[in-house]
């Protein structure tokens, strides 16, 4: 054995490498089959961050297709107005890219809304029922329809098909339930602790 190595160093090295390569290759090949992941996990992670309003404002027919487009590098991360700045930041963190400002072409970030059907005016055409991506509208032909507020994502898709314009988008929650403490205003800006604080430009920096 030692003789063979001494006499044919090149051949010995090739044999040794092949000897290592084949079992490991076989092992990797087996692992690729055995531990195969179904679907694309990054798409699921992106989809988990998206707000699932299914509104289509991003230009894709739902949140998942948009997530797929982002994962494939076909779409920017700033096309989702309901997700807003926070959503863009989360996507940027996940994908390790620079956060971008929200693309105004796709709409503006607004408070969460909920659809409300003015029931006196509803003619029972079921067009909104078919448009709702999350089945949040209840009703049958020639019967009054109504929105299940807790299921509504505020996507706006039911407003357009309504032939009598009886759907309003109202702010989702008001009153005591929606109230919460706000971060305190930075009053320190009014106090000149050191000389530079008097300069609002530098204070803001």
């Amino acid at each position, binding site marked *: 054995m030692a003789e063979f190595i001494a006499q044919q160093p090149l051949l010995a090295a090739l044999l040794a490498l092949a000897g290592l390569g084949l079992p490991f290759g076989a092992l990797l090949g087996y692992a690729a089959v055995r531990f195969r992941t179904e679907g694309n996990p990054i798409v699921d992670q992106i989809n988990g961050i998206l707000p699932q309003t299914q509104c289509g404002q991003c230009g894709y027919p739902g949140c998942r297709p948009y997530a797929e487009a982002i994962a494939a590098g076909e779409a920017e991360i700033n096309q989702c107005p309901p997700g807003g700045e926070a959503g863009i930041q989360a996507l940027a963190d996940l994908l390790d890219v620079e956060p971008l400002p929200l693309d105004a072409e796709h709409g503006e970030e607004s408070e969460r809304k909920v659809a409300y059907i003015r029931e006196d005016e509803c003619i029972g055409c079921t067009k909104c029922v078919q448009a709702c991506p999350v*089945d949040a509208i209840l009703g049958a032909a020639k019967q009054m329809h109504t929105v299940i507020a807790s299921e509504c994502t505020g996507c706006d898709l039911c407003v357009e098909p309504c032939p009598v314009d009886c759907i309003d988008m109202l702010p989702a929650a008001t009153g005591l339930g929606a109230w919460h403490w706000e971060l305190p205003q*930075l009053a320190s800006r009014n106090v000149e602790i050191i000389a530079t604080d008097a300069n609002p430009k530098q204070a803001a920096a």
Partner: protein
Amino acid sequence: MRKLFDFHGGIHPPENKHQSLSEPIRPAGIPRELVLPLSQHTGAAAAPVVRPGEQVLKGQLLAAASSLVSAPVHAPTSGTVSAIEERPVPHPSGLSAPCIVLECDGEDRWVELPAPPADYRELEIPALLERIRDAGIAGMGGAGFPTAVKLTSGTHHHIDTLIINGPECEPYITADDSLMRERAADILEGVAVLRHILRPREVLIGLEDNKPEAIEALRHAIGDQPVEVVVFPTKYPSGGEKQLIEILTGRQVPSGGLPADIGIVCQNVGTAVAVRDAVVHGRPLISRITTVTGEAVARPGNFEVLLGTPMHYLLEQAGWDPTRSGRLVMGGPMMGFTVPHPEAPVIKTSNCLLVPTEKELPSPPPAQACIRCGLCAEACPASLLPQQLFWFARGKESEKLEQHNLFDCIECGACAWVCPSHIPLVQYYRAAKADIIQQRRDHEKAEHSRLRFEARQARLEREEAEREAKRAARKQAAEKRAQAAAAEGGEDPIQAAIARAQAKKAAQQQAPEASPEEKAAAARQAAQAKLAKMQKRLADARAAGEEDKIVTALEASVKKLEEKLASLEEPTA
């Protein structure tokens, strides 16, 4: 002597308790109107069971618990329900919430209460818990968590220690102190009920050493009961549930856990009295002891107040001078909040109304920059890093806030009290908590929407597939029929149908080629048929002796048809 422990941090603010202890508990009386918010507790709001205009008696159920974590509301006196509407409630937002408004008749007549058991010890534990739930008892220390829920979770664990919370560590407040001084026997009766429900190994009543009268009264009332009064040095916030547990047992409640997880249940002394009223006397929770204090009242003291009493009414009982008071605070100076509307009512959790003068409790000076002195970390009773939390809250770094255990913060205000830069730290934490809770809710909602969306997609696909399958089945069946018909030697039904359709079409195409003579002949024939029919009807009418009017009308019709027929025949003639 029992071994005492200490908790990390804590502060010693001026106590200011003597002002409200000069007089015994006074009844506040019955105001003209009571305002009872449907949500006076942690959890879901109660659902009204009365209607405006209805007469109610003292102790009658006004609103029922609407879910598992909820508490009913009862009428504190007799009167008429005048409205169920939005009224200002004691809440830091100053917003309004649904309330039952009760116009008092001053007669204070009791409803017929369910007879209390001769001996509650003979009742099953679930029945006792049911009584406590139906009495609408929510933690009277300030958090307002429904007591029955807390006790129920206690019965699911093995409880070795029941702690009765009596330190009342916050400055100014003396409601529990006066209750212990004057109604120690009632407290002990309540403790006996709690003991019966939870069956703990030991029962401890924790008190600070600044309440010698209360300690004396409790020791006297205990007699030979297996209850121990434990006295420890005064330090704020020793009345915090987790802090009190650490002082008395040396054990810490795990982060995010409940005292029941380590075999401990904590109840406030006021809650013990409410439990006693509910179980021993069958009375629901309709009043509480509230401290009214501050330099803007002439006669500070403790009042037994009906729930729903407007705050200004209660303040007037203590000689309130609105011109002197800077603001109205519900709770103490550390954890309380400013109530913008003095017409807001006293609720189950209102342990104190504080009306300080501007000099007594000045508005906080403007916050300055954090100098990283670290005093807040030394003062924090939850061993948190307030300074780090402050930076993270400002940067809205939710993940780091959670890593630094923001949710273990009890919002006691010790950090803000020691802060030399007057930074409103607690407000930062409250805002950050609200923000994180909102994020969690949004995430849950998104997850829910995703599931619904996917379910809908699946449904649409399934329906499409079903339609497709039906179509295929119909096609197959038709083919089969055709084959069967062909095999029997008859004609193919599909071919036959096509042939019929073609024939019909051809006939239609030929029809317009008819000559004018043929058309005229057809018209004549139709007119003759009509005339014959009409003549027959005329004959029938005459035979049956119908009214003249009908007969004349038919005669006219016949004449008209005859004329038409004549005009049709003319051109050919």
